[in-house]
């Protein structure tokens, strides 16, 4: 039962309603993909190349077919006839070199579920084994024989662009996927004339998303009807249904996708994956249900990675440090293929490289490159952590250059408060914002002035001693672009779908309500938040509301969950559906109460006759009379249900300030985050408990990105950090507690004023932590540190600064703001 401390006047939005999702998750009654079995089900296991780049000269499954329990085995050639098209890229970006418009067709390589004749990254699928048990399938994988004619490997984007580099896709004659850019204002002139220009190169490491539930798919066919039910651990059941229809050439109406309970995604389950297509193809061939469950080591190779971007960032400013213009060039390592939205990820940050700061001109350019690595795609934040990191790091460098405190440089450049959409230098229209308010609140919560005093006392002495901990303070004053997305804007960006979402409300004759949403939660608590919105809108309680999602047979329209979009787009669709319900209910209520609609007002969750507060009608009462349909007005249709589709007129722009306070051990290089303050503004709050939880988790991932995580490849294209023992996902022991607060500046983009909070923590935290570490170690002469600030790297940087000869000079000498 939903428990609420104190509720005022039936207002549930904004209240600390406990999650309705929890009981099943707490008792083991949840149904994740691997918990589902169907009679007659067979198991798929996959043969993956260990070699990063090779021609396939022989793939022989004959020995595997003789293994116990094996019912079938397929090579890429065997399955080639199953694919009506290659796997989709929904965001194919073409060259657009400043300032010309598109100059070429996009270079998106065909990407087949099973490699046909060539492999391009370690982990790519070369054969499929089907057996009667998980164990038999895994055993049979070992019996598949593959001959690889190895090709030269390229794993670094600069090398991939060089003349004579091994080509990933011969047909393009280059490894460059695209160079795309734009500018606004007189950016070149301003940079040429500005008294202060600060430049720096930053590298944003390759990251592995690590949802704790690996991926998995189960396909149950009804062969006689050509129907397929696909259970997949996915964030995007609706998009998957449409894409599967295209890839398999199956009537879309005969595909049903069910996202069961999904154990985290963070973007890694926002994709169309080879294994999903393979499972459908095998189920189609064999006419039996088949299941594939990813192992963690497979997850590291075969699920998308994130980031891996080199950023050359520069700002032009006055002598006082007032920003004039920003300009950035990105070199993004996309890996071997384009996955669903790979090319577009940098564009999600492309307009944000001036952060929440005023400036006059703007330049952005990104070059995306193919290399022999796992494809990258959306990982929590997607494009915006990169932008925030570059902007916030260089603001510190600018402060240093002009001799200002890192707080002061931000205060003097922040855009002043505004409530209606405001066009900024990059060309976006920010929805609303009070950046100084969250900045000041964070400073106050952190005790900033006192921290600076303590630092001034502590660090010089500790540095002179060469021992003891150095104190560092780092800001991240971020802005993000969320609520994906206005469909017309997506069209202009060559994205292959719309950005709307849908909701349906059905009011039952018994007074209860069913909500059907097009969003597809996997931990975000939509069932609870959507119940709160509905309860307020219809004058019922959250427990009266049942929320259905994640099954395309139930929820026929939706664009699913990613990019902090669910509340601002799907939640708004729900809000709009409730308005339609109320409008119809009001007509019926007026008829029943024999008054005009104008005499009715909506108050305390029901319709009241103005001046006669005892004459009322509730939505449940109207739902009953609409169902009986005994005395409806005029040509009113029976029943009380409504669907709304919301296509947002603009993005939303959550923002805020995070402050990290760190202690750096000079002797070991280890970094401890001793205080972390986050003040976020995500507009109107539906459920503060859920919002805080999203910030906690996001910040934890951001701190992990700052301190621990990096996917490392060797020169042969082998993923060295190939499992959870070598890629460090931090536990509770490695992370601090967080101090949270918020400001509320309602969005001008949607009627509830909501902005989204799913990614804010991950977007903000890396810059805050690395700025804090840089702030600490400058006391011992270290000019530059970069992601991840692991103990080893920090220790080496300190040694290099002291001239002890232990530092990685090549890596560190490029540092230092110019």
């Amino acid at each position, binding site marked *: 039962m939903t428990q609420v401390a104190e509720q005022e006047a039936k207002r549930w939005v904004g209240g600390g309603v406990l999650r309705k999702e929890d009981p099943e998750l707490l008792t083991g009654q949840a149904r994740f993909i691997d918990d589902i079995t169907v009679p007659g089900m067979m198991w798929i296991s996959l043969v993956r190349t260990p070699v990063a780049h090779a021609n396939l000269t022989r793939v022989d499954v004959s020995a595997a077919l003789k293994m116990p329990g094996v019912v079938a085995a397929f090579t890429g050639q065997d399955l080639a006839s199953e694919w009506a098209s290659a796997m989709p890229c929904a965001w194919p970006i073409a060259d657009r070199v400043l300032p010309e418009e598109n100059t070429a067709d996009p270079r998106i390589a065909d990407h087949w579920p099973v490699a046909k004749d060539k492999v391009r990254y370690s982990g790519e699928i070369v054969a499929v084994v089907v057996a009667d048990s998980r164990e038999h399938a895994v055993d049979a994988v070992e019996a598949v024989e593959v001959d690889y004619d190895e090709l030269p490997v390229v794993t670094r984007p600069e090398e991939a662009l060089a003349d004579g580099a091994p080509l990933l896709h011969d047909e393009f004659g280059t490894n460059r996927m695209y160079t795309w850019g734009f500018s606004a204002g007189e950016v070149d002139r301003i940079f040429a004339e500005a008294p202060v220009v600060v430049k720096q190169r930053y590298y944003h490491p390759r990251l592995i998303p690590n949802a704790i539930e690996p991926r998995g798919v189960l396909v149950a066919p009804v062969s006689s009807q050509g129907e397929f039910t696909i259970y997949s651990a996915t964030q995007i059941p609706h998009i998957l249904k449409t894409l599967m229809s295209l890839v398999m050439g199956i009537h879309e109406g005969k595909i049903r996708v069910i996202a069961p309970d999904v154990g*985290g995604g963070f973007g890694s389950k926002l994709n169309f994956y080879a294994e999903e297509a393979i499972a459908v193809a095998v189920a189609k061939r064999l006419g039996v249900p088949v299941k594939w469950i990813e*192992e963690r080591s497979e997850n590291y190779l075969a699920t998308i990675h994130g980031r891996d971007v080199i950023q050359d960032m520069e700002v032009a400013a006055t002598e006082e440090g007032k920003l004039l213009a920003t300009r950035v060039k990105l070199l993004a390592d996309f890996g071997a293929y384009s996955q669903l939205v790979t090319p577009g990820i940098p564009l999600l940050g492309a307009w944000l490289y001036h952060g929440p700061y005023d400036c006059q001109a703007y330049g952005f350019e990104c070059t995306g490159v193919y290399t022999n690595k796992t494809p990258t795609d959306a990982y929590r934040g997607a494009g915006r952590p990169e932008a925030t990191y570059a902007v916030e790091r260089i603001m510190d460098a600018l402060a240093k250059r002009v001799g200002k405190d890192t707080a002061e440089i931000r205060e003097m450049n922040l855009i002043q408060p505004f409530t209606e959409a405001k066009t900024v230098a990059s060309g976006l229209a920010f929805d609303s914002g009070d950046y100084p308010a969250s900045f000041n609140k964070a400073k106050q919560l952190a005790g900033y002035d006192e921290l600076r005093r303590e630092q001034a006392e502590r660090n010089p002495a500790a540095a002179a001693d060469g021992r003891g901990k150095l104190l560092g303070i780092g800001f991240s004053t971020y802005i993000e672009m969320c609520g994906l997305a206005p469909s017309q804007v997506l069209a202009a960006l060559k994205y292959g779908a719309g950005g709307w979402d849908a909701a349906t409300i059905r009011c039952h004759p018994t007074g209860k309500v069913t909500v059907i949403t097009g969003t597809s939660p996997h931990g975000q608590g939509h069932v609870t938040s959507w119940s709160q919105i509905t309860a307020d809108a219809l004058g019922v309680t959250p427990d009266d509301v049942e929320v259905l999602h994640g099954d395309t047979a139930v929820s026929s329209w939706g664009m699913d969950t990613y990019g902090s979009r669910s509340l601002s787009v799907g939640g708004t669709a729900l809000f709009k559906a409730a308005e339609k319900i109320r409008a119809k209910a009001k007509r019926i209520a007026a008829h029943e109460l024999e008054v005009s609609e104008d005499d009715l007002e909506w108050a305390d969750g029901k319709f009241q006759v103005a001046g006669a507060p005892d004459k009322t009608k509730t939505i449940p009462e109207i739902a009953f009379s609409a169902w009986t349909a005994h005395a409806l007005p005029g040509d009113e249709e029976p029943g009380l249900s409504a669907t709304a589709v919301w296509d947002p007129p603009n993005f939303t722009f959550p923002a805020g300030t995070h402050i990290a306070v760190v202690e750096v051990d000079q002797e070991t290089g280890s970094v401890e985050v001793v205080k972390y303050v986050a003040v976020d503004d995500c507009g109107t709050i539906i459920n503060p408990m859920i919002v805080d939880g999203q910030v906690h988790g996001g910040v934890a991932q951001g701190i992990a990105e700052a301190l621990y995580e990096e996917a490392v490849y060797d020169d042969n294209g082998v993923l060295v950090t190939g499992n959870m023992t070598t890629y460090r996902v931090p536990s*509770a022991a490695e992370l601090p507690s967080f101090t949270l607060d918020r400001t509320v500046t309602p969005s001008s983009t949607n009627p509830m004023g909501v902005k989204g909070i799913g990614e804010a923590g991950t977007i903000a935290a890396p810059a805050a932590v690395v700025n804090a570490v840089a702030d600490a170690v400058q006391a011992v002469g270290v000019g530059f540190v970069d992601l991840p600030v692991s103990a080893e790297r920090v220790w080496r940087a300190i040694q290099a600064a002291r001239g002890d000869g232990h530092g990685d000079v090549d890596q560190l000498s490029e540092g230092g703001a110019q």
Partner: protein
Amino acid sequence: MRRITCAVNGVQREAEVEPRQLLVYFLRETLGLTGTNVGCDTSSCGACTVMVDGESVKSCTMLTVQADGTEITTIEGLASNGELHPLQEAFRQHHGLQCGYCTPGMIMAGLGLIQSGAGMSDEEVRLGLEGNLCRCTGYQNIVTAIQDAAGQLRQSANLQGGS
């Protein structure tokens, strides 16, 4: 094949099992207790943690045959008479879960920590959870939930002990 007997959530179970079978697959696939999850193949994530003879154990690090003669509690065995166990309730009250995939293992690890008599400072609880990974919550609310439940459980144990 080996015959084993063990008590799972208070029910005696007998089965013929393959000597190589991991306990987690016995629980999930032989007994159908799918509340215990698998998140990795290196015993790193702790999603599969259960209680064996009163101690929390990663059930992917133990063979089913090693569980012969033991008493096992899984997440399905915690709630009683439709009431959540105090630790489950504390996870709910403090929003100690989001996607819920690590949650059964996290609750079992927390229960093991509480029952071991470990200290309940932030640092002690965080160290005690070192073997369990969560990617959603940032751990803070999990730590709070365990501390809260420990207070309740230990108080009621003391009361029972004193009566």
